[in-house]
Every structure is written in structure tokens, then in C-alpha cells.
């Protein structure tokens, strides 16, 4: 094998563009999954099973099927229904939707982990439902929810290369384009492989610091 540093430096500008797209997809995907996951959790707590049952089935289905196929589904089927988004928007929606079915479990576990006594105290003080949630339950749940959510952010990062398959030029897409133009696979693919390790390691360090802040 020959390692060519000039190919690495030629790839770097493309790598930077790819990194920006990857981080954009990650940030927006996280936002969608965090908020949509909360919506699923709250819907699963409604008293009627006519809401719980469909939400449960849909989320279970989304969780157990490949993100890649969901991506194709959104990318090719939404335009048929008259909803045309850019490739990146579709990708962000798909990642957000896919991971919202994971974050809903995190929220559920976080809410269930709040001691029953807290609920009972809120009832005893006859707090209205809104204040029970905002002032008593959620502040305690957030603390338990942050570490697992952070883990999902990291797995989302590692799922962003899938967007390449619907023509988004994130890191792997850039690497593939570059290698097809220059017939060099080794350098670009290795560079982004290392970049993924570095970014996910930095993210995990950041998360650990955040966790320590919250637990204190």
C-alpha cells in the first residue's frame, strides 16, 4: 500500500465541507429527535389506549427497521405525495424520526425513575398538572436523561454517513466523490475514519463534563 500525503492535503478542503454538513445534520437531527421523542413519551402517557396503541406500534416499527430503507422511503416517496425537500432536509428528518423512537424510551425511563413520593407530594399540595410537570417531575428527570441522550447523539453521529446514499455530501459522501475523481480510496476513507473516532471521542469527553455538572 502506498500512503500519499499530497492526496490527504488535496482532500482536506472537501473534508472540511463534509464535516460541516455532518455536524449540521447531527445538530438538527438531535433537535428533532429530542423534541419528537418527548412528544411520543407524552402521547404514550395519555389515558386512552386509542392513542397509546397506534403510537406504540408505529414507534416500535420505526425502531426495528433499518434507517437506510427509511431514508429511501422518505427520499423517494415524499415527492410522490407532493412534499419535495432537499436531500439534507430529508436526511435530517429521517435521522430525527428514527432516533426519536430511541429517545422516547430514555424519557420514559427518566420519568419513571422519579420516586412515586414526588408525584404524591405534588398531588398532596394540589399542584396543577402543569406545575407538577414543570417544577417537580421534569427537573428531576432531566438529570437522569442527559447521559443516555448523549450516547444517542454519538450514535447519531455515526449514522450520518448513511445520508450519503441519498446524495448528501457529508464526510463519507465527500470521500467517495474524491476517491472516484482521483482513484485514491485509501487516504480519504482513512482520514474520515480517524475523524469519526476523534469527533466521537471529543463528544464523549464533553458529555462526561456535562454529566458531572448536572449530577452535582
Amino acid at each position: 500500500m502506498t500512503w500519499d500525503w499530497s492526496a490527504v492535503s488535496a482532500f482536506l478542503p472537501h473534508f472540511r465541507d463534509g464535516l460541516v454538513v455532518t455536524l449540521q445534520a447531527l445538530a438538527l437531527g438531535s433537535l428533532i429527535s429530542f423534541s419528537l421523542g418527548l412528544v411520543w413519551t407524552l402521547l404514550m402517557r395519555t389515558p386512552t389506549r386509542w392513542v397509546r396503541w397506534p403510537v406504540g406500534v408505529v414507534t416500535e416499527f420505526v425502531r426495528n427497521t433499518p434507517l437506510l430503507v427509511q431514508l429511501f422511503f422518505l427520499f423517494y416517496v415524499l415527492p410522490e405525495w407532493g412534499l419535495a425537500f432537499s436531500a439534507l432536509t430529508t436526511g435530517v428528518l429521517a435521522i430525527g424520526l428514527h432516533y426519536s423512537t430511541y429517545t422516547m424510551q430514555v424519557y420514559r425511563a427518566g420519568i419513571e425513575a422519579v420516586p412515586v413520593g414526588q408525584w404524591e407530594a405534588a398531588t398532596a399540595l394540589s399542584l396543577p398538572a402543569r406545575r407538577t410537570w414543570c417544577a417537580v417531575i421534569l427537573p428531576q428527570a432531566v438529570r437522569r436523561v442527559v447521559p443516555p441522550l448523549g450516547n444517542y447523539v454519538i450514535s447519531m453521529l455515526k449514522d450520518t454517513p448513511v445520508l450519503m446514499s441519498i446524495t448528501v455530501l457529508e464526510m463519507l459522501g465527500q470521500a467517495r466523490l474524491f476517491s472516484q475523481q482521483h482513484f485514491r480510496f485509501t487516504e480519504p476513507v482513512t482520514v474520515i475514519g480517524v475523524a469519526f473516532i476523534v469527533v466521537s471521542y471529543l463528544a464523549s469527553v464533553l458529555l462526561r463534563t456535562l454529566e458531572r455538572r448536572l449530577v452535582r
Partner: protein
Amino acid sequence: MTPGLWDLVLRGAWTTIQLLVLSGLLMTAVALVVGVARTSRHWSVRFLAGLYTEVFRGTSALVMIFWVFFVLPVALGWQLVPLWAGTLALGLTYGAYGAEIVRGALGAVDPAQREGGVALGFTPGQRLRLILLPQAVPEMIPSYCNLLVELLKGTALVSVTGMGDLAFSGNLVRLALQESAHIYTYLLVVYFVIAFVITRLMRGLERRLKAGLGGVA
């Protein structure tokens, strides 16, 4: 759909299942070896196993697949058959996640069990095989089942390199028929059914293994 297209989809599904079974086996082997190595007495073994998990959990599975499919042939001068290349990439990546499950479950076994083994003069190998693993394995099954479903979803990634798995043949059928909604719904349902079967099988296995443990508190 014409019979020819059905044939294509069935062959794709067969490839996906083959890939799932092979990479599942490799994943299990890697997970056990690396997971046990992380509890080793020698720091060098622990360090290497830790490095392995960090590196393979740090990269994306898809990047790993690209690496095995496109960089490895250039680097080594020979190329793996797509099925084995996919197996290698997926097995090694998901094996690193599995290693963490194994390590966690081994750590969760009551320390007194290990000490009991020492007191009775068991060798480290016997302790692992006769005392620790029989208690740790049932604990691993739920997370292992989740990991298998993740692996199933991961097998769809190989279609990006042009390997004819279920997702790939679905794309071909879409090109032939120009009906995205139907095809992709079928595809998702097939994946869901496979995932469902995995979950059921694992639940049965867990019950069998737990029953074999007898009255361990």
C-alpha cells in the same frame, strides 16, 4: 410484480439473512473474546482490548464497510468476496459493542462467586467457563438481542457498496416498477418481521438459560 422481480427480492432477502447469521456469529465470537480480555489480569491485554473497543465503537459502521470494501483490497493486494467483506466489517464493528455487554455482565456477577471458585481451587479458565459465564450469559441476552436487531439494521448498509442484499434488490425493483411507496413498505415490513423473529427467539433462549440456573439468588 413479475415472478422475476420476486425472485430478485427473495434472493436479496436470502443474502441479508446469510449476512446476518455470519456476522452475528463473528460478532458473538469477537464480543466474548474481547469482553473477557477486558477483565484480564494483565494490563497489556486489558489495554489492547480497550483500544479495540474504542476504535471500533468510534467509527461509523458504514465507514468501516467502505474501508473493508475499498481500502483493504488496495492495501493487501487481494479482495474478499462481498459476503465475507460485509461479514468482517459488521462483525468487527458490532463485536466491539458486544464486548461492552459481555464486560458489563461479567462485572455484574457477585464477586463472592469468583472468590468461591478461587477457594475451591478452580483454574481461571474453569472459573470463567463453569462459574462466571453460566451466570453472566442470561444477563447478557436482553442487550444482546437489541444488538442483534441493530446488526440486522446494519446489514442494510452493505447495499451502498453494491452488494445484492434486501435493500439493494428493493432499489432495483423500484427502478423497474417506479412505485416507491409499495416497494419500500414491503421492504420495511420484511425487516420488521426478521427483527420480530429475532426478539422472540432471544426471549425463548433467555427463559431456557435462566431455567438452567436453578436456585441462584
